Structures are given as structure tokens and as C-alpha cells.
């Protein structure tokens, strides 16, 4: 009887261990990190949704006009992580007076967008943008840009954590 009890307890402990391992695999294990060989580790739909968010946010953040500069900065900051919003606020503050005085308007349009890296937590999108700048009465100038936009998953959806232009 004693041996039977020991065997049953041992079996129960083993099975609990197996169930724990299965639960970890199904619900708790972290997804793979993106690499050069496997840059996307989420579904097509998930990465496309994030790239669309990066595209829309970049256009909103990078477009602004002297007529309602402060309101646009505030709106842009609502699309960013806290850290990036602070950094953006400082940069926007530095150029504010000159931007308004010169009656500058910047309109950014995404020409092409593609996914560079994507995981469940973070997506980086490469965007080709055309920047249309209007300054006072001095006409319109269009400049091509390439930017890498990083968005991170949050309770508020995808938020921009960096924009790198080179």
C-alpha cells in the first residue's frame, strides 16, 4: 500500500510538472526576437497594422503649421511614448518662435512604407516621405526623406518611440 501511494504521488508530481511546462509553452513563453534572418516574428496582419499606425503617426507628427503650432505639437505628443514626447516637446519648443515668425508650414506625405523589424512588442517601419515646405511667400519646396519609425505596443495602441531620419 505504501509503495502504491508513493508511486501515485510521484506520478502526480510528474504530471503537474508536465502541465506546467505545457502552460508555459502555450501562454507564458516570450515570442522570438526579430533577427536579420527572421525580421518579422508576428503575423502579416499584426505587422501591417503596426506599419499603418507608424505611417499615420509619422504624417501627423512631422506635419505642422505656424497657424496652430502649439495645438499640433500637443496632438503629436499624444501619439508618442512619454520619453519621446518629452524629447519632442523640447525640440519643438526650441524652433517654435522661428517657425511661427517665418510662417512656415510642413506637410509630410508617405510615399512608400515597409516593415523593417517586427515583434509583438515593437515594430520598426521604413517610410519614404515627401516633405512639402511652405515658408511665407517664398514658395513651396518638396524634399525627399527616408525615416525609420519605431512604434511600441501599449494600452493606448501603437505609440511612436523614435523617428530616425538619415
Amino acid at each position: 500500500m505504501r509503495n502504491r501511494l508513493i508511486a501515485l504521488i510521484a506520478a502526480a508530481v510528474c504530471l503537474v510538472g508536465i502541465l506546467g511546462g505545457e502552460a508555459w509553452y502555450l501562454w507564458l513563453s516570450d515570442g522570438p526576437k526579430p533577427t536579420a534572418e527572421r525580421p518579422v516574428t508576428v503575423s502579416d496582419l499584426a505587422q501591417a497594422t503596426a506599419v499603418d499606425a507608424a505611417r499615420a503617426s509619422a504624417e501627423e507628427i512631422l506635419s505642422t503649421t505656424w497657424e496652430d503650432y502649439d495645438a499640433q505639437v500637443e496632438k503629436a505628443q499624444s501619439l508618442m511614448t512619454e520619453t519621446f514626447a518629452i524629447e519632442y516637446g523640447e525640440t519643438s519648443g526650441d524652433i517654435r518662435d522661428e517657425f511661427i515668425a517665418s510662417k512656415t508650414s510642413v506637410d509630410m506625405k508617405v510615399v512608400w512604407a515597409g516593415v523593417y523589424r517586427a515583434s509583438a512588442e515593437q515594430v520598426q517601419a521604413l517610410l519614404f516621405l515627401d516633405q512639402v515646405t511652405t515658408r511665407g511667400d517664398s514658395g513651396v519646396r518638396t524634399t525627399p526623406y527616408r525615416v525609420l519609425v519605431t512604434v511600441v505596443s501599449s494600452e493606448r495602441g501603437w505609440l511612436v518611440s523614435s523617428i530616425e531620419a538619415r
Partner: protein
Amino acid sequence: MAGDQPRDGMVKGGLSRLLARLVVGLGVLAVVGGVFVFREHQTGSQATRDQERYGAVQAAASDQVSALLNIDYRNPQATIETVKAGSTAEFAEQFDAATGGLVEVTAQAKSVMTADVLWTGVVDVHPDSATVIVATTGTVTNTLTGEKPAARNFRIKVDLVQEDGRWLMSGLDFVPVVTQ
């Protein structure tokens, strides 16, 4: 005390039956969990193959753009052959037809262009075709730049198709300013 032995036996017997039921229950759960794990693993393997396609098309586009933009007037044929080797027959033919002018211009200007791929972005990918955008940075040195390196940064769109397990370039466009 002698009367305790049958009682002790009954308790152990009851515990044994309870444990046996628990083990059976846990066993059933483990089998069901195992099925879910197996199915998840199968799904994951297919997803991994699909996701590795992104890496394959990024690498192919990057290699082709890098080959195209690193050209030296002293040996332009090396660039041309590398690009053609990574292209479909149709695109290689079009490229060949266009390179006569390229070789001439490069030689006349004593042009040396170097470029690095900064980023690649997959616009669209299917089992046999893909569109990738590529951002590059680099310089060109030629008689027009006074033999000094001048910055040349490009936005490029590459179309790819898969043939015999290889991703080949079927189209390439320098993306101009679109918005006016």
C-alpha cells in the same frame, strides 16, 4: 490499538483511490495539453517559414541594390555581371540594354560610386513575389564633383520574384519626389 490497523488501512485505501483519480485527471489534462502544444508547434513552424521569407527578400533586395550602387569606372562590368546574376532573365536583358550608356557615362566622368544599405522595408511579400523598399547612403566621386566625394542617398523600390528557390530582381525604381 489493534482496532486502529483496519482503520489506518481504510484511510490509506481512500487516499490511494483519491490519488489515483487525481493522477488520471492530470493525465487526461496532460494529454489534451500535449495536443495543444503539438498543434501550436506545427502552426509556429509554418509561421517561422513565412516570417523567414521577410529576411530572405530583404537580403536579396539589399544585395542587388548594393551591387548596383557600388560601381567603379575602371571595372563597370563587374557591377553589371553581379546585378544580372541576381536578376530575372527579362530584367537582366533590359538592364543589359541600358548599361551601354551607363558604362560610357561612368568612364567619361571617371566615376566611382560607393553605397551602403541603411534599411530595407518589406512592402508586400507573397510565396513567389515581393516588393521591398531600400534606403541607401553613399558617395560618388567623378570629374563633375571635382574628384571629391559627394553624398548620394537614394530611395529605391525593388520588385522580386522567386525562381528555383532564389529571390531574383524583376524590377527596380529610384523613388523620386512624388508630392508636388
